[in-house]
């Protein structure tokens, strides 16, 4: 692993993967020379891997209502949401909320 890469894991659950080429788990190597927050990660995802209608994932600068974001299995609201600074080997999980029964 290059010292200039920030490696993180992305995961999608309960249908959120359908917006990202139906891939549930990805390893990302981001440019490690700059600071990465969840906000900049969302922009990167939009530009690089979001394949379906963006409005089903994003609303303004943040995720749309009904998608939970977990960082290392903890609700991102407990960690500063968009401002959270990504650390090496962080696991970022996006979950669509289900309503069916």
């Amino acid at each position, binding site marked *: 692993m290059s010292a200039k890469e920030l490696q993180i894991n992305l995961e999608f*659950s*309960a*249908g959120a993967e359908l917006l990202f080429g139906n891939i549930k788990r990805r390893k990302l190597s981001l440019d490690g020379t700059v600071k990465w927050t969840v906000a900049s990660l969302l922009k990167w995802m939009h530009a690089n891997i979001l*394949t*379906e*209608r963006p*409005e*089903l994932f994003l*609303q303004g600068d943040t995720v*749309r*209502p*009904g998608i*939970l974001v*977990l960082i290392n*299995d*903890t*609700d991102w*609201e*407990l960690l500063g949401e968009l401002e959270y600074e990504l650390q090496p080997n962080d696991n970022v*999980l996006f*979950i*669509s*909320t*289900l*309503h*069916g*029964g």
Partner: protein
Amino acid sequence: MDNLSLQKQDIEELRSEIAKLRAALYTKEQQLQDLEQLHAQQSGNDPDSAVVQQEHEEKAEVHTHLTNDDIARFSRQLILPGFGVQGQLKLKNSAVLIVGMGGLGCPAAQYLAAAGCGRLGLVDYDIVERNNFHRQTLHSEKKEGMSKVDSARIALLELNSSCQIKCHTRLLNSLNAFSVLRAYDVILDCSDNVPTRYLLNDACVMLGKPLVSGSALKMDGQLTVYNYGADGPCYRCIYPVPPPPEAVTNCGDGGVLGAITGTIGALQALEAIKVIVGLGEVLAGRLLIYDGFSNLFRNIKIRSKRPNCHICSAEPLIRDLIDYELFCGMHATDKDNPLQLLEPEQRLNVFEYQELQSAPHLLLDVRQPAEFEICQLPSAVNMPLAEILDDSYVKRFSSQLESKEFPIVVLCRRGNDSQIAVQHMRNRYPDHSIRDVIGGLHAWSNKVDNGFPIY
């Protein structure tokens, strides 16, 4: 058309008209009932509520010992450390309300009745249909057309005749929710739509009742307990804003396996039992996510109470139940909500398409391949909506798109996705003859070809 098929068509039309009138009448009767009850409550003259109260008190006779039959019947759970006689008595004295007698509600009710829950309330407005059987396992073939709560009640009483079961055959709304929920200790959200989830949450917060919330779709399930314990969040703490309607998929559109709803429903029964008995660690402040595809269970920590939550904080902004369909911009059922995206001249009815069938045209069926495999019209080409929206169709059908006059017809299951597809295609080809079929394959089956399968 000959005389016989004209008659047949008349019969079908009358049947469908009568069904619609019955449904409208039923809705009005429910509205009247709810309004009368509200009026009586507010004018301080509430015979109905007094009866309910009395009934509840009668039923709420407190059991202080187990019968020999109880002991024999529940022996395998009585010997469980932490459950025991006291746990069984608590269950026997408990009342649980299950909202939605579908894929989640059936197994949840089944395990609660079997475990010896004393009183169960069942809420559902709907009737049993054939497409329910694969997952709604209390409803059996002979009960097609019966109300779901009556059907479930029969099956549950066969399982445990001493369980008291109250049927609430109605759509829950802000007028009737309190009077239905009040008599129960724990509420199970086994519903299938967003407005009902907010309604149940708000009513449970106001009445101080724990809400065991399950949901399932395709191969995934989710489960948590809201409004439980000092720090336990409510649904609004986690989801202060409802999702956009276009982001919500129901089981009728997305599909679901019965073993998935069965798994989550059984776990809802387990959480209800734990809440009642005071056993184990209740799943509050945590969300269980179940991925049936890989058979992975995962527990994630969700936030605790939101200090400025509109409903469960110390200073709530919402002090009474609201109009949840308006709040969510969605209906409180998972029934068809027809879209209206296109102008009338951009659409064909099924008879117009029938006439066009013999002429040269391109028929694009925009359903998923798995749905296309179930049934399709002759000459239809499968082009899933996603491939329309990412413009893959432009290259594939370049020859058909050369002429503006060449008719292109877009078809789907019910005439919603086909409108999205036509709208997208018309943005690029505004003057082409691109139209969709109103009502899709369902309308085709209902009006043109009764032999065409419906799913």
